[in-house]
């Protein structure tokens, strides 16, 4: 059901549990990499593919919740599925508030883990796509001259070339040239697409 490469990271200090989870996820066709501690996970090089972390709350070096915080600080956006020996409500609330996909109590149902992991991978795939798109848009925006940015802002605000020319004190022909440069550099095929891009860039546009 999922195209392309994807990876599940299992972080649990208990070797039996770690291998059992790995076996289960492999059995449904997922690729798995296992880690015995939070640091082992943090120190490894994570490939740039959609993934999900299955994380034991109780780790010897850094607790699962601390690792969650550390990942945010390091800009690691991989979604987390927590697993725990004893279901502690305040702990699970904290984990979910910090963006966890799911909080499962051992022993859990296989469907629950598999569903959560797949949800996590999809979330990561989506997040990666969004971030890549935004990066591309920012790159395009960075290529615009100051004048072109002004033109882009007015174009997406719905002004006609004639109105923009009047506003900026330039000829309509010059505005037309600026406008086509904007479309080209941003890689937009239509006005509607340019508007959508500017919405995504939101903050960046206001700054310009």
């Amino acid at each position: 059901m999922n195209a392309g490469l994807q990876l599940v990271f299992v972080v649990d200090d208990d070797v039996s549990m770690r291998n059992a989870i790995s076996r289960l996820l492999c059995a449904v066709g997922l690729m798995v990499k296992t880690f015995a501690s939070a640091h082992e996970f943090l120190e490894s090089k994570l490939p740039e593919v959609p993934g999900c972390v299955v994380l034991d709350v109780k780790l010897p070096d850094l607790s699962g919740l601390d690792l969650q915080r550390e990942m945010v600080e390091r800009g690691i956006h991989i979604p987390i599925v927590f697993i725990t020996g004893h279901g502690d409500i305040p702990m699970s609330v904290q984990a979910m508030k910090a963006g966890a996909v799911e909080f499962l109590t051992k022993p859990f149902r296989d469907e629950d883990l598999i569903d959560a992991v797949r949800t996590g991978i999809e979330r990561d795939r989506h997040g990666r796509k969004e971030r890549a798109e935004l990066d591309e848009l920012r790159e395009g925006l960075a290529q615009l001259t100051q004048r072109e940015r002004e033109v882009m802002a007015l174009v997406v605000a719905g002004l006609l070339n004639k109105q923009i020319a009047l506003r900026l004190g330039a000829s309509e022909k010059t505005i037309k040239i600026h406008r086509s440069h904007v479309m080209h550099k941003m890689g937009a095929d239509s006005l509607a697409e340019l508007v959508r891009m500017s919405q995504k860039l939101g903050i960046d546009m206001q700054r310009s």
Partner: protein
Amino acid sequence: MNDSHEQELHKLQAELAHVTRVTTVGELTASIAHELNQPLGAIVTNGHACLRLLARENPDIEEARQAVECMIADGLRASEVIKRIRRLLKKSATGKSSHNINNIIHDVLRLIAGELNKNGINVSTRLSNQLPYVLVDRVQIQQVVINLILNSKEAMSGAGWQPRELTIHTGQTATDITVKITDTGVGISPENREQAFEPFFTSKEDGLGLGLSISRTIINAHGGKLWLEPGPDEQGTISQFTLPLSEHVL
């Protein structure tokens, strides 16, 4: 202190440590739960994996076999945990033998004499020397006596509190051995006298509130009774328990 006395004291201290271990059974439970949940979680997950491996169009027999082997290993691991717990609790589970209650009280007093001394508590004993032996689990009865004496000590430990008298009395009725521990402490209000036996009831800041509850459980299990009464002139508390006389014991 001569050598044999010192040896005996060491033995008693080791036993007290054991009593303390049993008292912390609540804490123990949490750690046992974790120790058992790990292998159980792995067994369940391996079981799920195994079913999925076998349900495939081309069943992965080899991987399924490995899953089952891991399940067996984890099952054995779980039973090891249980064996360890059994060993830990074994000493108190050895069961009953015949003892003179006075000896048990003397043992306990020797153990906690330092603690009582430090708190300026005078101890007097009025132990009947005609008592028959009773069939008890010595370590458990020690634990009860320690609990009751330490409660009395707490009740008399307030700054400037006077007097600090602890009296231990043993006697006999037609059917029971009786033990009375009387203190001159702050006492306990009538409404709390029964509540005090509820688990987690405590008047101490750092108390667990299990002492009296566990003590009553132990005495009841021996066929006896444990209760609290106000002390003479409505001062302090008398902790009393009974142990039934056994026909089989001399």
